[in-house]
């Protein structure tokens, strides 16, 4: 079958290749190993509600715990966590059980969802790390919820200080805020490019950058992303497609999934995933005279919400804004099986998108899927339907 408007053949982007190498080597990347060689500690974190700046300010390299980048047999994950937990948490646990994260000095999680909190529980029992901390994450955006979350972040900081035997100064926190905000601003620049009719970067390529963003030192990430943005400014690469798509849903780390959609002519211009916009979206806003911890905690609870938060319309409205800003023709909902928060949201989100005339393709997937087989067939049919609507 001939695919019209296939994405143009890309001119190599050297810095993108470096990001790919980080992802390929993860979790035992050169940067992580180097950080430890120099005596630095490396902490794993789960979920976007864990404030990385606190760890960074203490000189710790925070890396996001993710699972295998491909769909894998999860014998150990199934045995230890049962098959009805999402394949993301089972995949992470299996990597942990098999020693892939042996280098971690600490594990930090939030009470974000059933899978994450049980993954943390089992990690403590079967894998263990010298430091472990769980933050209670409120599910509301009220001032009382902010107060509680602020206290949780303060407790986390105090626990960390006790573990390290050193204080984390406000100055260090301010510096970390700057570093992380720089990453967020650069990612926003990258996403601005995707608003173009023919963006210079594809959705799959963007996912390589996103994956690297939580797997390497932020300072280095910022340097590389600045270079990549410069390269993208110079390149003649222009990606076009049969329809502009946005992917929403739970966690995703395999760029092959997006690549398989783009290979069929879908142009992925936006995303709303645990590992994409919901990770980097909002900056920490440090008001005059405000304590850095207060600013950090406010940002993390107010950030682009996960489906766990109530009311869900906060998330839906942000998705609708992205649909408008990125001129999205259709939305692909990819929900990892047994990821219940997103599964519950789907009927309501579908209604909201229907009201603005945007169709939804709902895919139940396993974490790490490359989007082959039946998924390809369904994507093909979805793209044909979107094209027919344009005519």
């Amino acid at each position, binding site marked *: 079958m001939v695919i019209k408007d296939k994405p143009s053949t890309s001119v190599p982007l050297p810095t993108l290749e470096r990001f790919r190498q980080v992802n390929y080597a993860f979790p035992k990347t050169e940067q992580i190993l180097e950080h430890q060689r120099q005596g630095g500690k490396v902490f794993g974190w789960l979920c976007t509600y864990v404030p990385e700046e606190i760890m960074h300010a203490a000189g710790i390299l925070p890396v996001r715990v993710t699972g295998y980048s491909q769909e894998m047999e999860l014998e150990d994950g199934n*045995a*230890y*966590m*049962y098959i*009805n*937990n*999402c394949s993301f948490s089972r995949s992470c646990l299996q990597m942990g059980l098999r020693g892939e994260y042996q280098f971690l000095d600490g594990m930090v999680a939030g*009470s974000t*969802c*059933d*899978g994450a*909190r*049980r993954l*943390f*529980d*089992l990690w403590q*029992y079967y894998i263990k790390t010298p430091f472990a901390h*769980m933050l*209670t*994450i*409120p*599910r*509301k955006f009220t001032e*009382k*919820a902010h*107060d*509680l979350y602020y*206290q949780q972040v303060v*407790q986390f900081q105090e626990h960390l200080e006790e573990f390290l035997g050193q204080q984390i100064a406000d100055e260090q926190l301010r510096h970390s805020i700057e570093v992380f905000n720089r990453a967020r601003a650069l990612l926003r620049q990258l996403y601005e490019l995707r608003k173009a009719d023919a963006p210079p970067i594809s959705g799959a390529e963007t996912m390589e950058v996103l994956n690297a963003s939580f797997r390497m030192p932020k300072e280095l990430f910022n340097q590389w992303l600045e270079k990549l943005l410069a390269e993208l400014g110079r390149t003649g690469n222009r990606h076009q497609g049969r329809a502009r798509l946005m992917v929403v849903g739970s966690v995703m780390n395999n760029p092959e999934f997006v690549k398989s959609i783009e290979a069929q002519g879908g142009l992925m211009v936006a995303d709303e995933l645990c590992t994409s916009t919901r990770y980097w979206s909002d900056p920490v806003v440090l008001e005059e005279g405000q304590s850095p911890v207060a600013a950090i905690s406010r940002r993390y609870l107010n950030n682009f919400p996960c*489906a*766990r938060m*109530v*009311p*869900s319309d906060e998330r839906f409205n942000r998705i609708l804004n992205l649909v408008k800003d990125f001129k999205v023709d259709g939305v692909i909902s990819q*929900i990892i*099986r*047994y*990821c*219940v*928060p997103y*599964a*519950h*949201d*789907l*009927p*309501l989100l*579908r*209604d909201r998108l229907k009201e603005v005339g945007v169709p939804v393709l*709902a895919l*139940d997937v396993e974490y790490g899927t490359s989007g082959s087989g039946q998924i390809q067939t369904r994507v093909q049919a979805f793209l044909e339907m979107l094209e027919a609507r344009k005519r």
Partner: protein
Amino acid sequence: MTASEARSSRISAIIRACRIITRMSQANPDAPKSDVLYYKMLSDYYTRLLNAHDEGKFIAAHTVFFPSEILYAMDIVPMHTETTTWMMALFLGGQAEILSAGAELGLVPEICSPHRGLAGAFSLGVLPRPDAMLWSNLICDNTAKSGELVMELNKCPGFFLDHPFQRSEAEDKYLVSELEDMIHFLEEKSGRMMDWDKLSDIVARMDYQTELFREIGELRKAVPSPFPNRGFLQLLTVDYLCPGQPEAIAYLETLRDELAEMVRQGKGAVSPERFRLMTLFVPPMYLMGLMEKLGHEYGVVSVVEPLFTRWAESRLDPSKPLESVARKAAMIPERRSMYGPLGQEALQDLIDCAEQYKVDGAVYWAFMGCRHTCATVKLFKDVLNEVDVPVLTIDCDIVDPTINSEEEIRGKLEQFFELLEDR
């Protein structure tokens, strides 16, 4: 059938079933009096729900482990959503219809079946329309996410009660403030004011109720154990539906006295008692009869259910009713083993249960819709194996009988009993 009749049909059928069982129990001189009180409590609960709108009352639907003490104190009629789905499964069958309706709404099979069934039941219009939906994250993502769709289906307002995951002074205060906000919401929506004296009375009874639960738990340690397998569901339901209510107290006091008398006489729920089981999670509702039957056939009795019937040691203070309602949330057995951080304390409690109740084996009902409990299957098995307690795991669904057949489950249980015999 009118829309109003359709809405009441399932509830009417539950009431009819309960009344028939009540009459049968009354007519049977050997039936425990507690059974009569239990089924009367059920039929009264659903009768209040059925008649609520005709009597000008406000109905609040709420998820499991919700502090319905507050609703009773405000003279609001509660509708326990998960239990109502269970009761439909237990008494009426016909789960397929409501689960299909849930699927048509777009709810995938991975979502807990009581929640899919509930949404389906509302979309079919076979339950009374609630005037408000109340839900919380105690006990899982399914409860946390089930409220908004129910609100949309019923075009009613709702309130989400945010339960902090861990316990600290700040988290306890947050929960109390959430309860205050919820009371304001209910006062505004229902026009009914909180009766604080009434809430204090309920808390006082709730405090006594938790004592009764503990006393019953102690009596079940006896060899032979006096408590029948089918009683497990009753112990859950009494707190789910009528916490701190006089009918709950009457039932539990009667049950306690009956069990105490059996212990005094050296009588067991099954005779002879051969195997003492620990039950982890809940057997399928539609197989409660099978569990009772197998118990008698094989001399098997469930003596402890650490996830559901083992209340934490703490007291409630009627002079601080709201703080007490918040404290109760931390005392419920499910909070410690299913929801909260699974620390060493919870695991030690499992071992203590096995030892104190002289358990021969454990059965883990791996309900496929309950992810966070299933995530502990291996962990609990490892912990119990350390004290030489074998664990049988059975995949199941608590309301959907299509997941596995009665014969298949019977076969697995029989094999397990043979293994216990060999030991």
